């Protein structure tokens, strides 16, 4: 399988109390096309930082970040943004649906950002909503949905523009166990169908067990956890 994500010697530090605190200290990492990977690590280990680097929200201090053959570390902030809107899908812990857009509009937003909503795009959005079990809630406002429902909408939103890479930051962290399980089932199914690579940040061993591979961030470095 060709690799979709390649990180080499990535470092990132943040100023804190007048000093620099190193969060990532030379991360080397490779994710294959269509692979699902769990990223574990204690709080403050740099999981979210790694996610931010992969989607171009942040840039490394040193090292190379390549996603789908694009060297993100060489791009400007604007270029990284344009890359993100085309190639990345994001699922947040707190769902982060736009409260002033309906469920359907939230799904259409990534398509619009890429240049416009086509009829195919609308069909795909409607189809995804059906697939996440919310086909009848397209006109609802996000705050009328339960947490699980909101996260399902967020998953559909992350996949609607057929991204190469889906990043999920503790997607079940804000849900009860049963709902989390159901949400992940939906996500697994849709991601597998789309062929996208998925990297899930989680604290849950159960969720990690569903993935093809598990990585753990320790002392600023990523290590493969033996299956």
């Amino acid at each position, binding site marked *: 399988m060709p690799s979709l994500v390649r990180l080499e010697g990535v470092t990132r530090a943040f100023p804190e109390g007048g000093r620099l605190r190193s969060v990532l200290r030379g991360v080397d990492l490779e994710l294959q096309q269509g692979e699902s990977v769990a990223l574990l690590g204690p709080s403050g280990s740099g999981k*979210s930082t790694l996610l*931010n680097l992969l*989607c171009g*929200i*942040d840039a490394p201090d040193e090292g190379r970040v390549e996603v789908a053959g694009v060297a993100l570390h060489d791009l400007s*902030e*604007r270029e990284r*943004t*344009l890359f*993100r*809107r*085309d190639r*990345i899908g*994001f699922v*947040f*812990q*707190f769902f*982060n*649906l*736009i*409260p*002033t*857009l309906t469920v359907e*509009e939230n799904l*259409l*937003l*990534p398509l*619009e*950002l*890429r240049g416009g909503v086509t009829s195919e795009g609308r069909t795909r959005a409607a189809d995804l909503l059906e697939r996440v079990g919310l086909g009848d809630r397209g006109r609802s406002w996000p*705050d009328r949905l339960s947490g699980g429902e909101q996260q399902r909408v967020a998953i559909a*939103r992350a996949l609607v523009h057929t991204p190469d890479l889906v990043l999920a*930051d503790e997607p079940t962290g804000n849900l009860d166990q049963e709902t989390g399980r159901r949400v992940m089932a939906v996500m697994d199914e849709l991601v597998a169908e789309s062929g996208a690579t998925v990297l899930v940040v989680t604290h849950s061993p159960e969720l990690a067990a569903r993935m093809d591979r598990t990585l753990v961030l320790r002392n600023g470095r990523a290590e493969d956890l033996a299956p």
Partner: protein
Amino acid sequence: MKLRRRAGIRHLLYHPWQLGLSLLGVALGVAVVVATGLAVESSRQALRVSVETVSGRATHRVVGGPGGVPDSLAARLGIGAGVRMLAPAVEGYVVSPVDPSRPLHILGIDPFSEAPFRPWLAGGPAADGVDGARLVTTPGGAILGAETASALGVEEGGRLVVQGGARTAVIEVVGILEAEDRWSRSGLLDLLVVDVAEAQEILGREGVVDRLDLILPPGEEGAALRARIEALLPAGTRVEAVGAEAGAMQDMLRAFDLNLRALSLLALVFGIFLIYNAMTFSVVQRRGMLGTLRALGTTRGELVRGILAEGAVVGFTGSVLGLLAGIVLGRGLVQLVTRTINDLYFVVAVEGVALSPGFLFRSLLLGTGATLLAALLPAWEAGSASPREAMARSSVEDRVRTLVPRAAVAGVIVLGVGAVLLALPTPGIEVAFGGLFALILGMALLIPVTTVVLVGFLRPAARRIAGVIGAMAARGVVTSLSRTAPALAALVVAVSVTVALGVMIQSFRGSVVGWLDTTLVADVHVTGPSVVAARPDGEIPPGLAGTARGFPGVVGVSSYRSVALQSGGVLTRLLAVELDPRGEAGFEFLAGGEVRDAVFAAFRAGEGFLVTEPFAFHRGLQVGDTLSLDGALDEEAGALERPVLAVFRDYGSEAGTVLLSRDLYDAHWTDERLTSLAIFLDGSGASEEEAARIASRLREAAGPDTPLVIRSNTELRERSLEVFDRAFEVTRVLRWLAFVVAFIAVFSALMALQLERRRELGVLRAQGMTPAQVWGLVSMQTGIMGGIAGLLALPVGAVLALVMILVVNRRSFGWTLEVDASPELFLQGVLLAVAGAILAGIYPSWRMARTSPAEALRGE
């Protein structure tokens, strides 16, 4: 519509309070600017139309000094220079007892010379049925506009009593002119056209006219004709192009207009603060959403454009509303502005508000532009929202806290720029206003750091008074600095400017009162009916001064002759005086008066002028400088040149006045008339009865046809203050409007802040805080913010007041004012801030008390 834009607009619509208050802020700001602009433009346009109406198609005019132009000159120029198109004109103001508050502009013409100049007044039946020749054939015949006739309740054939400078006359309406359009209607407003001889009689100008209108051909032919005319002109007369007078009159209003506009801009500045506050708030509220949008791939530019587009929608809508409100407000304000111009400068009749498409467009542009300006910073803030905000919420306040020292440094720099602008040795008013606005901005930037320091002091006290809730309330001001700082800045600026305006008006009034106490030393003041309230410009019989001196009980009389002279293209007011030694005591010299006796001796001997402070300021004159006055009869010199002997305090005229001795005046101008008398009675503090007795004898001496206005010292003092208060009525109205905008700014900023804390308050409720405790917490926090704002507004207001009094006012009008600030004004400012703050807390507290914690915790 794009989804992002839709999301933004929905956000605005879901927060109707914020949207409503933003719209109100823009609308009020624009309304005040529009209303002021309309009032100023309308009065200027009325002045222009009025001058053009009476000038007709004349290209040039022959004018003289105060003595006017001998009417025989017309024939001399016709024969001697071959001038064909020439028409004499006499102008002045009269009042009718029907409506003494309505000065009528009297224009005396020769109907048979009028055809080329003012065809509508030409002799012979005109198309509209008005026959100018009837002015000559009917004794006391007059033509007036339909609107004026209607206002005075006269019809064709009716009679009207009018009082001129020195006499009372009865005129008969021989024609009523129907205006064809708004322009003509404005020009004809309060215009009374009579035969030139009739005007001379009514105005006491026998044998002279004010000017001879000319139409000179263009090019060399015209230049040659002008040269021939000039060769025949007697001393003291000259040819000038039409428009010079109107230009000089417009110039007189410049500072007045600019101050009004600047004041109205202050209201817009408050509006901008309000909008800035609302937009910042709206951005801060949405940081999570903006972060999500960034994470989903929205670029910085797209976010900035989105916020600016929202600002444009709010700005345009608010501007349209403000425009409509401004037109309504302008109709009221135009009356106040016109009255002030009539009181202080010259007579102008305004027919209505002058609405031009250009003005309306500029106003819309101003409102929308100001809103966009206010939205710039929040938009930049939105653009800088990191996608990480979608995941980490606390970073907003961290970032804002790092900005506090930077804002303080920027504030100090902007303050420095303001101070430099104010200290620049230039008389430019615009520079002074630039400095003032820089000070306001600089102080606003210093508010966050001052707040942090103040809260540090307040917190222990709040804890002692109200326990944990008190400490929370105080600390909350600093922990939500991204929300509280703009609100506090808006609050402090708004309150301090209203305090400063109050101090300025009070100082001005105090200075005028002090000046009146010093200046009004005579017991009885006599003048003719005057149309400009701030100065006597009527006339009284020349012999009246001598008559008064002979009355028993009269120990001295000062006589005055006030004339306006076109000198060097500028209108100069001359006051020729014959001062009684008692009258000399009323002068407070600001420069050159070290040896008073020597100054007055030189003045009496005609060796120099005394000038008022504004005159010296506007002309850049100092004691010892030579002042040249055109139009004197001194043929060899061509002008009267004398040094300035001293500069004295005077608040009577913004343009300033030149005093010269009556003997010097008589030696250079042919004009025996008198404008006013100041009579000194025997014994100090002569009674009102005594003054009334003298008044009665003066009226008897003048005769029944000579109207006199006689006032005792007390009456004149009261009248002067009345005029002063009227002059500041516009400023007061603007101050109150600014006050209202300020109040709304306070109210909206704090209310939005508390409404936004709904979730936080929900957590507190969930943890067991009772509705009453929530009420206490919210009220205490808004109260603390109001108190901080009030406290900060005191020094800021004092500094702004000093700048307004010592720099802006000085450069605008040339007056030195004594600073007079009563504690009530400052207390009023603090109360405004605290009351606004407490009121702003009521609704959120009430709402929170009614909302279940579960509902609040659900968030938006």
